[in-house]
């Protein structure tokens, strides 16, 4: 993978016109999901992911060839997502009512099929809502570390490289994020009826 990445970077720098498109195709989903995990909003994630690739294209000349381009890409994504959150922080956030009115069918395809129990659908939606709210209560930096680790399967060493901090700092941020989430979701942790298996 690392070798592939280097070959792709070499092709981009040699002026291969299809290489940048391949680069975008390879990373578009990863960047979209990191942006979604941090911003918590699909529209924002779409905007951020496109903005990230434009920024990368514009700044290619400043990229040091011996560095890892994926780390650089993630770094720009995390910064762009946090930056967007800061800009939006002055505007009112979506209320719980707004979230409840959100179209479940659109956000969670299959959740509204007639074969499923409406109560179960509502319960599932409620859990999703609480998890999203809990995640948004964690600070942007802690959230960035948590989502890169837990949902995007990046190793502590890689996250440290992306955020330009020590591995100890990453571990501490992950630990703090998990503790805050535990506090926010304590209801589910003490609820033996909730299925929390990895199935």
């Amino acid at each position, binding site marked *: 993978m690392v070798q592939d990445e280097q070959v792709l970077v070499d092709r981009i720098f040699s002026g291969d016109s299809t290489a940048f498109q391949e680069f975008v195709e390879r990373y578009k989903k990863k960047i979209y999901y990191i942006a979604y995990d941090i911003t918590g909003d699909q529209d924002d994630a779409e905007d951020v992911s496109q903005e990230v690739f*434009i920024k990368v294209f514009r700044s290619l000349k400043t990229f040091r060839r011996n560095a890892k381009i994926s780390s650089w890409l993630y770094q720009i994504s995390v910064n762009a997502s946090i930056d967007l959150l800061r800009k939006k922080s002055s505007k009112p956030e979506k209320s719980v009512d707004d979230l409840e009115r959100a179209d479940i069918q659109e956000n969670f395809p299959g959740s509204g099929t007639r074969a499923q129990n409406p109560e179960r659908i509502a319960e599932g939606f409620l859990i999703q809502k609480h998890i999203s709210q809990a995640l948004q209560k964690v600070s942007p930096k802690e959230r960035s570390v948590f989502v890169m680790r837990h949902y995007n399967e990046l190793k502590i060493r890689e996250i440290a490289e992306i955020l330009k901090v020590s591995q100890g700092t990453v571990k501490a941020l992950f*630990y703090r994020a998990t503790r805050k989430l*535990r506090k926010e979701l304590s209801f589910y942790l003490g609820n033996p009826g909730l299925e929390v298996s*990895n199935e």
Partner: protein
Amino acid sequence: MSDCKKCQDLFGEAFYEELNDEQKNFLESHIRVCEGCESEYNEMDSTLKVMEKRIRPEPEQAYWNGYWDKLARKMEDEKTLTPKTESWWRAFTFAPKWAFQTAAALLLVVLGIYLGKTIFSPSIPGVQQARQLPTVAFKAEPNVEFTQRAQNYIERSKLILLALINFDPETEDSYALDLPHQQQISRELVSEASFLKQGIADSDQRRLRDLIADLEVILLQIANLESEHDFEAIELVKEGVDRRGILLQIHVTDFRQSTKGKDKTTPSPTVSDSFLNM
């Protein structure tokens, strides 16, 4: 480090099965004897399991299929990929370093020839009269040139400092700072500072000399930064700028120059002299 701290330090890797055998044995044996760590481990594990219930809404396939086209359109809108500029942009983006250096050298040579011909070539009386420059301006030329260099030095230094001070590593990626370029200019300015300090002999120009010296120290620090990721060192430079009140000194210099300039009915060399005599 206590065993509990060591143990908790391993949690972030333990939940994802990334511990080596030694670490795994240590963690398992510790949580067997430490109730606190065992409870902490179990609660964190449960939290992560709840978090795994989270569903990330998947955009429709059509969105992914049209992703590149949409991106390419946006790039075109920004005139980064229009057919006319693409070759230029591509050449600019991928040109080797020596190409920039050669272009810069050529530009300097052309500029040098132009300046040499227009400023330093022997003056022709008829042409001088045609230019109708006041005689006093020629008398004061060395001062004017020195003043312009001093002003230029302060102005360029100010831009470097502002770029660094306004750089926020939390919101911008470090490549946006373009530190190598800033360092190159800082080095040039440090050389310029030596010349300017030698040119200020009078004691009544103390303020200007102090400002140039303060700026020289800061510019030297910037020139010696190891990388744009060395945020601690960048913070130290920022603190230095703040502590020495350099931006305030520059503003005061600008203000004095502008107010003294307004007081005079005629332009240089009197304005320049007043600047030099600060």
